[in-house]
């Protein structure tokens, strides 16, 4: 399992670069991960990321876009605006979680 350094912090990641240990995550790291993929985090970004972290802690599974919208209360359109092109994967990456496995 590769170890990579982001913002001076060593993190364990899978081959694609997603964190493998959600406990290594913190808000500073999130800001750096976001910066790496060209996203500057604002309050609405944080609202989504906090939902992901909370939902993962409860369900043990990264929520899909639909779940972030229905259970997290953030409209799908907004998610595509905040995390362009690939919202589900980008949110998971920044939140230090695995890619969602659900189909919808």
């Amino acid at each position, binding site marked *: 399992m590769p170890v990579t350094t982001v913002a001076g912090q060593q993190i364990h990641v899978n081959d694609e670069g997603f964190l493998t240990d959600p406990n290594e995550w913190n808000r500073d790291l999130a800001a750096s991960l976001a910066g790496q993929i060209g996203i500057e985090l604002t309050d609405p970004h944080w609202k989504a990321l906090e939902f992901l972290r909370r939902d993962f802690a409860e369900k043990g599974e990264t929520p899909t876009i639909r779940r972030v919208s229905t259970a997290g209360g953030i409209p799908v359109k907004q998610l595509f605006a905040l995390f362009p*092109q690939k919202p589900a994967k980008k949110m998971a990456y920044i939140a230090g979680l695995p890619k969602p496995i*659900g189909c919808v």
Partner: protein
Amino acid sequence: MTTLASEPAVMPNFDDKVTGRKLAIICSKGTLDMAYPGLVLANAALGEGIETHLFFTFWGFEIINKKTMNDLKFTVLGNPATHMPQGLGGLPWMTAMATAKMKKSIADVGVPEIPEFLELIVASGGHLWACRMSADMNHLGKADLYEEVEGIISASDFIEKTDGAQLLFI
């Protein structure tokens, strides 16, 4: 475990420089079980940042016709994959029962019903198109169709719009 600090960070390739990949999905069936594959794949493609167009034609119109979109059915008749005796499929209550069971299985895995699924696809940037010939055959106009259908267009218009796209016929 000994990655040098100077090495670039391992990070996913989100490939924002749009590859120009496009997907065209032709939905030609109006049963519950044949409506979902197109919608699930469209949703998946949109989540990957792929421009996606759906063309509803012939029985696929059931999916976007306001009168029928909430009431698609599933039947075991003519479908040996259900592993049910085909004679049972003809009983009057069988289609209703099979439909209810499938709807429940779909809901159980967190997948929405048809109208909400279309809403999700449109919110994700997907494009819905209705087939001109099917509309004319059934004397249906834009007002009869799900509001977010962008237009009733001919087959050649659809082919033109999806120039260079990968295509799925369902």
